[in-house]
């Protein structure tokens, strides 16, 4: 199995924290880890599809913020939940669409396009709210994303479903094949009749949609939507995808790996907090663990 390396990495990290932190393996804590990984996992799934298509999406955080503040202000204004949520999703799709069009039709570099929209979307969110958080989300809305099912937080279940869908997309649908082909050899994919532009645009739109979903989960949990929400999310999402085996050169990536990557990062943060590691050392541990996870992956997966 291709994701064995990532799995081993996760097991090692779990074992280390299990040994160092009493109560680490308590059911409650494991659920915490999943819940805390869920938002990053959600973003990282979209990121994985974009990375496979040979791109990158640095604008996920601001996309989430824009979607969050617009949904939230509609909710506060009394708009019906489904409509407000749909508007948030539409914003996510629109942000992804713009990224995708600039990459696929205009032919700009993905890194730079999304670096530009990173600032642009953030600015729009700030301007729209005047920099203030949107508070007072209706309890009913919060309940949607805050509930739990079979003892698992709903957020975790939603993201699990998303992961399943992403897995199906990648493994079982033409679109998945197209993503892998476009990222693997764009010229050949073109000759073989793959709709290059549509495939890329769809990847960015999914990434935007999942950023919007992450935003809904988050504002449900926090009860407020801030225009500065999602700062540096892109780095966590990229790290999760890369730890999970995605190659930033395109054409390669795995849904299972990405989920494992997100859980590795979540576990680490949880474990370090429980150990009350001082903030400078947490930062150090974060850096070292990203490197270590890549090394383990490298060793178990072998060259290429």
């Amino acid at each position: 199995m291709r994701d064995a390396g990532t799995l081993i990495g996760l097991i090692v990290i779990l074992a280390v924290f299990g040994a160092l932190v009493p109560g680490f393996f308590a059911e409650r804590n494991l659920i915490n880890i999943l819940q805390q990984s869920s938002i990053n996992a959600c973003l990282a799934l979209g990121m994985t599809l974009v990375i496979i298509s040979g791109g990158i999406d640095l604008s996920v955080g601001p996309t989430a913020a824009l979607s969050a503040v617009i949904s939230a202000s509609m909710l506060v204004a009394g708009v019906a939940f489904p409509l407000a949520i749909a508007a948030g999703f539409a914003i996510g799709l629109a942000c992804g669409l713009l990224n995708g069009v600039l990459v696929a039709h205009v032919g700009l570099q993905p890194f730079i396009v999304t670096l530009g929209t990173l600032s642009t979307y953030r600015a729009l969110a700030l301007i729209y709210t005047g920099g203030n958080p949107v508070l007072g989300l209706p309890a009913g809305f919060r309940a949607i994303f805050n509930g739990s099912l079979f003892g698992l937080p709903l957020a975790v279940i939603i993201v699990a479903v998303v992961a399943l869908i992403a897995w199906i997309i990648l493994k079982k649908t033409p679109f998945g094949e197209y993503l892998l082909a476009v990222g693997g050899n764009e010229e050949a994919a073109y000759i073989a009749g793959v709709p290059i532009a549509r495939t890329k645009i769809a990847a960015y739109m999914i990434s935007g949609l999942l950023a919007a979903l992450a935003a809904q989960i988050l504002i449900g949990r926090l009860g407020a939507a801030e225009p500065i929400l999602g700062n540096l999310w892109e780095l966590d999402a990229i790290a999760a995808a890369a730890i999970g085996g995605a190659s930033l050169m395109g054409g390669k990536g795995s849904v299972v790996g990405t989920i494992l990557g997100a859980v590795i990062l979540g576990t680490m943060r949880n474990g370090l907090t429980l150990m009350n590691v001082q903030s400078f050392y947490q930062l150090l541990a974060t850096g070292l663990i990203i490197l270590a996870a890549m090394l383990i992956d490298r060793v178990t997966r072998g060259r290429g």
Partner: protein
Amino acid sequence: AADLAPLNSDTEKDRIDWSQLEAKFGAFPKLPDGTKAGAVSKTLTNEYWRSLGEGYKVFGDRVGVPVVYQAAQSEGDQLGQLTIAEGLVTQGYNVLLVSPQTDSNLQPIMEQAKAANVPVVNVNDAVIPQAEHYVGNVQRDNGVRVAKWFIKNRPNGGKVAIVEGQAGVYASVQRTDGFKTTITEGGKFEVVASVPGNWDRQTSYDAATNILQQHPDLIGFYANNDGMALGIVEAVKAAGLQDKVAVFGTDGISDAYASIRAGELTGTVDSFPVLTGEVALETALRLVAGQKLPRVVATPQALITKDNADRYSGPDARKALLEDAAVGQ
């Protein structure tokens, strides 16, 4: 600037309380025609700094001085802030009010402004060692006040946790240190966790969840700002512990007041940014008028809880603070 000792705004002897300005230096003086002031602060993404700008504007309007207020794009943007400040110097403002990102990133401004003969007032937070004038509160005191609340209201002591701001940022270091040192003095309280929240609501929420799960008997949180505190409040509610765990923030943003009134956030340390802005501009303009003021003008802060929230918000806040100052609190 070499002759000035590096400033420590918390301990500097050459200081005056804001409430004494008028008493000691008289009514607001007449200014040269065409006086205009330039101000730069950390970032407008935080309500605190927007309120400070509001204070500048309020006072500027009152005395008929135009104020240009700018801010960097994010809290970490040190060079961007320097660029802005340099722009203000070249544009020929008569006085500069700066709230630097760090203790040193606006250092070159001090020299350029001196060369251009423009007074500079360092307003709050990070402290430029060479600053000749500082207006602001005592960062460390934020944490101290919260610690004192715990000592007074939770006489039996217990476990408390701190959620810090960005690693290495002055305000974060000082507030954390003030709280930690004060609360552990009596030996009754134990700081079981002091973890980074990076000024971020979500990070703080997750950190609080983990801490609560490990220490269900925790009695309180202290967060280095209000955004993080509001995230912690949600985590406490989600854990069903809102009656047992007290949560404090810092800054006194409007959302914090709302949450305090709603009985969710236990309290915050308000440092009255609008008032601070007014005092800072007043100080700056008095300098322009040629007055010689002490190096530090101290601005007020107060621990806000449900009991006194109304007293410190709304139109009477200034009066309340003057009363506080009069009793020497």
